[in-house]
C-alpha cells in the first residue's frame, strides 16, 4: 500500500459507479428505468463526460440488458451491468446463458424486495434465488465493501480457471442510498490489480470463425454443466487468492467470511450484507453484558464457503442465523439450509436457529436481535437443535 489513503463520502451506489470507472469496462448495457439504480445513472454521466471509454448501451428491459452483456462479452469485451429486484428476476433466463457460455460479466445488485405488494426497500431474496445459476455471488455490508467488491469481481470472473459471471449485492437504501466514508484506490492501483483489458481465449472477432451457443443435447450437455461446476469449485480458491491480493493492495482485510469476536465465543450470530453490521454491533452490546458471543459474516455466498463456515462454527453451542430473505414452505431459511447441509455429519456443530427478518425494508433493531439471540439459547437449553422462525412482524 503506497501513498496517502484518500477518503471520500459516497453512497453505496456511487461507490460502485466510481469503482467501475476505475476499471473502465468496454461495455455497460443497462435498462435505465426503475428498478434501475443510481449506479448506471452516475456511470452514464462518466460516459457522457468522456471520463471513460465504455460503450453504454441503454436497452428496453433487463432481459435485453443481460442479453446485450452476453453478446458483448462473447467478443472478448469486459462488461458490467447493474439492476435490482424485479429487474434481476427478468434477467433470470439470461443469467443461465451468461454462465453457460462462460461470460465473465460483472453485475451489481441493489438487493430489494419483490412485488407484490409493491415495495422498493432492502431485502436479499432477489440475489439469493440466483444461487443455482452458476454465478459467483458476493454480498457487501457497506459502501466500502461495495467499492471493493466491484473491483474484486472483475478479477474473480475473468480468472482463466473461473470464467463465470459474478454478481455482488448491497441492500437497497440502507446501503445503496446511504452516505458513508469510502477509502478509494488510485487508477494505477486498479490497473496493477486487473489487466487493462480482458484476456479472452475464445471470442467472436472478424478474424476468428467460431460458434457460440450451439445446440447441445444428450450428447454433451451434461459435460458442459459439469465444467461449470468445476469452474465454481475453482472460484472458491480463486476468490480467496484474489481477496488476499486485494487485502495486500488496499490494506483492508477481505475474506470469504469475516469472523468477529469468535475466538473464545460459545455462540455465534451469522449474517450477511448490512445485517452483518448490525450483528457485530449486537455482539459488542452482548459482550458488554458478559455473553461469550461473536459474529460470522458470510461475504461469499456462491461458491458457498462450507469449510470456512464449519470451522468457524465448530465447538459453538448455538448459531443464530439472520436471513433477510423470504422463502416459503422450506425446511429453513435460505442460508440456514445451506449451513445445515454443510454441517450435517460433522462433529461439534452448534444448534442452528434461522430467522427470516427484515423483508421489504422492515428494520430489525439491535434490541430485537438481542431478543432473538436469547431465544436461540432457550431453544438450545431445551434440546431443540434446529429451528426456524419469522421475526419482526405483526401477527
Amino acid at each position, binding site marked *: 500500500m503506497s501513498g496517502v489513503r484518500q477518503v471520500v463520502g459516497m453512497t453505496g451506489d456511487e461507490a460502485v459507479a466510481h469503482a467501475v470507472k476505475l476499471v473502465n469496462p468496454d461495455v455497460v448495457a443497462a435498462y435505465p428505468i426503475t428498478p434501475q439504480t443510481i449506479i448506471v445513472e452516475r456511470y452514464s454521466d462518466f460516459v457522457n463526460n468522456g471520463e471513460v471509454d465504455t460503450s453504454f448501451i441503454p436497452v428496453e428491459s433487463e432481459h435485453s440488458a443481460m442479453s446485450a452483456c452476453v453478446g458483448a462479452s462473447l467478443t472478448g469485451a469486459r462488461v458490467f451491468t447493474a439492476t435490482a429486484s424485479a429487474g434481476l428476476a427478468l434477467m433470470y433466463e439470461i443469467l443461465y446463458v451468461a454462465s453457460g457460455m462462460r461470460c465473465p460479466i460483472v453485475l451489481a445488485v441493489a438487493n430489494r424486495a419483490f412485488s407484490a405488494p409493491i415495495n422498493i426497500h432492502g431485502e436479499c431474496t432477489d440475489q439469493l434465488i440466483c444461487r443455482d445459476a452458476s454465478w459467483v455471488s458476493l454480498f457487501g455490508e457497506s459502501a466500502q465493501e461495495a467499492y471493493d467488491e466491484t473491483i474484486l469481481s472483475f478479477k474473480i470472473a475473468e480468472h482463466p480457471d473461473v470464467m463465470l459471471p459474478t454478481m455482488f449485492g448491497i441492500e437497497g437504501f440502507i446501503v445503496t442510498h446511504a452516505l*458513508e466514508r469510502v477509502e478509494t484506490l488510485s487508477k494505477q492501483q486498479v490497473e496493477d490489480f486487473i489487466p487493462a483489458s480482458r484476456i479472452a481465449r475464445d471470442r467472436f472477432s472478424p478474424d476468428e470463425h467460431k460458434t457460440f451457443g450451439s445446440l447441445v443435447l444428450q450428447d454433451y450437455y451434461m459435460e458442459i454443466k459439469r465444467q461449470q461446476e468445476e469452474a465454481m469449485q475453482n472460484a472458491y480458491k480463486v476468490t480467496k487468492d484474489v481477496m488476499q491480493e486485494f487485502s495486500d493492495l488496499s490494506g483492508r482485510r477481505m475474506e470469504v467470511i469475516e469472523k468477529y469476536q469468535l475466538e473464545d465465543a460459545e455462540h455465534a450470530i451469522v449474517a450477511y450484507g448490512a445485517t452483518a453490521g*448490525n450483528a457485530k454491533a449486537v455482539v459488542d452490546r452482548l459482550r458488554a453484558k458478559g455473553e461469550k458471543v461473536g459474529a460470522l459474516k458470510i461475504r461469499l455466498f456462491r461458491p458457498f464457503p462450507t469449510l470456512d463456515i464449519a470451522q468457524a462454527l465448530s465447538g459453538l453451542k448455538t448459531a443464530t442465523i439472520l436471513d433477510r430473505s423470504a422463502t416459503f414452505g422450506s425446511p429453513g431459511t435460505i442460508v440456514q439450509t445451506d449451513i445445515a447441509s454443510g454441517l450435517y455429519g460433522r462433529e461439534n456443530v452448534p444448534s442452528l436457529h434461522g430467522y427470516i427478518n427484515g423483508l421489504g425494508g422492515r428494520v430489525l433493531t439491535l434490541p430485537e436481535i438481542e431478543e432473538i439471540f436469547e431465544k436461540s439459547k432457550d431453544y438450545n437449553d431445551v434440546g431443540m437443535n434446529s429451528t426456524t422462525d419469522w421475526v419482526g412482524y405483526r401477527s
Partner: protein
Amino acid sequence: MRNLAEITDVRINGRGGQGAVTASRLLAEAAILEGQYVHAFPNFGPERAGAPVTSYARICPEPFTEKTEVYEPHIVVVIDPTLLDDVPVTDGLKDGGTIVVNYDGEKDSLIKYFEGVHANIYKVAGSKIAQDEIGRNVPNLIMLGALIKVTKIVELESLTKVTLNRFKGVLGEKNVVAIAKAFEEVE
C-alpha cells in the same frame, strides 16, 4: 470493542423540496472531512413537494457497523417551523437531547411547543437569514450552522468546506455567510 456511547444520531425534519436530504449529506461529509465515521440516509417513501420528510446522519469519531434506521435521535433539526403544528418532531428524541428549530418568534413561545419534553431547545430565524443572505427561503444548510454551534458535532470550517464544494460560486458563498450568521445567532 468500541465505546458505544460515542455515536450521535441526528434527525432532520423538513418538507419535500427543502433540502433535508442535502443537509444530512453535507453534515455527514463534514464529519468525514474530520476523519469521523458516518451513515447518512434519507427516509424514502412517496416523494411529494411539501410533504413532511426526514433524513438522518449517524456520526461517530470511531468506526461503527450499525445499519439500522434512526428511531431515537440525540439531535433533531426542524427546517420548517410549520412542522411544529403538523408533525410530532420530538418523537423518539433521547431524554436530555437537543432540538434546533427554524423559528422567528420569541424563544418562550417556542418552548411552549415542547411542554413535558426534557431536551435542550434552541432556535434560529433560519428562513429570515435565508431571505436576507441568499434571497430565497432555503434554510436547510443554515440550520446546520445553528446545529453545529450548540452540539459541536462538526467544526464550522468543515461545514464551510463541504458547502463550497457542493455549491460552486456565488450560491456557495452566500450559503457560507448565512451558515456563519446562524452559527452566531442561534439561541
